[in-house]
């Protein structure tokens, strides 16, 4: 349509807009729709009745019902993304997974028969295990008491742990590697090292744990 036709439209402020609280979240999993009516429990029946009456929010583009979608991989891709270039980030992620698979297959075919079962070839399993190995268990937070700031050991939430693990991996790959290596190559190398509990990211996690252990006397400064 021509700009002249759109001229009388007013601008709708969108930044701080939100859904009415009566809107429900969309249900994406196919299994929940394949259950017959009799098998539902009381609360599920109530939920279904509510869904017939209340409006439902639009599903965000990242939410998918595909068997191949993984929320952790999507989160990692978003963190790798720069200036909104999701296409590039997604292609880098798929190339990383492919690189992991290739390296593991190479190891698998070169290994003797008795060791073949120990080699993990599924890149998703390797990704998840590597992330789990990189997650710190305890963090440090700055607490000011009597004019001095102390680093106090503090338990972290699950979200914070996952975020720190992903952030460390990505920063490690971006900064401490040779300038001309491609990101999938760097990332696959780091993920394989983390899967075996080696590598600089695991070292960083250990350094954080050591600092927390050294400061354990200040643990009483916490009030939560």
């Amino acid at each position: 349509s021509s700009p002249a036709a759109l001229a009388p439209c007013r601008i709708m402020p969108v930044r701080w807009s939100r859904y009415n609280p009566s809107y429900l979240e969309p249900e994406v999993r196919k299994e929940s729709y394949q259950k017959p009516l009799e098998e539902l429990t009381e609360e599920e029946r109530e939920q279904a009745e509510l869904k017939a009456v209340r409006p439902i929010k639009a599903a965000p583009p990242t939410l998918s019902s595909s068997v191949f979608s993984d929320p952790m991989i999507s989160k990692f891709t978003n963190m790798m993304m720069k200036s909104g270039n999701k296409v590039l980030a997604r292609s880098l992620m798929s190339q990383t997974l492919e690189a992991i698979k290739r390296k593991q297959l190479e190891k698998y075919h070169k290994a003797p028969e008795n060791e073949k079962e120990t080699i993990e070839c599924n890149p998703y399993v390797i990704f998840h295990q590597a992330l789990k190995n990189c997650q710190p268990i305890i963090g440090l937070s700055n607490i000011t008491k009597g004019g001095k700031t102390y680093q106090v050991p503090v338990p972290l939430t699950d979200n914070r742990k996952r975020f720190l693990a992903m952030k460390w991996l990505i920063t490690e790959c971006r900064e401490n590697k040779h300038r001309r290596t491609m990101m999938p190559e760097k990332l696959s190398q780091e993920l394989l090292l983390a899967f075996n509990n080696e590598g600089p990211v695991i070292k960083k996690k250990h350094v954080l744990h050591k600092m927390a252990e050294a400061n354990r006397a200040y643990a009483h400064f916490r009030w939560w």
Partner: protein
Amino acid sequence: MAAPAYPAWVTRWVSGQWRNKKRPPALRPPRTLALADKVANRREQLTEATCITEMSVMMACWKQNDFNDAPCAKEISTFYDCVAKAEKERKNQNEDSLSSRGNLPSSKVNKLLKRFPQITRYV
């Protein structure tokens, strides 16, 4: 005869304090001698840190095993359980109930007093 017990002002007078112009202070400036509709802000007594024993047990295990996570899995899981329990406890505790010392926090008291103010004049 035992020393007779005089009231406090007699002792003061005899000691000569009033002669040196030491008078009790007059109320200056006099604020309205009535209860206000708010309480002073009192710093809430902070609760203690939770899960310190589990954390120290876990750190001792780390020290023995060179900060590897695999041998310390049990201690780590107990620490996580403790943290989850403390978090749930914090969420469930109702702020309207009295704190451990039996006092309401000053913000809550002020809200209540604002709802039921002191009536100073009748219209």
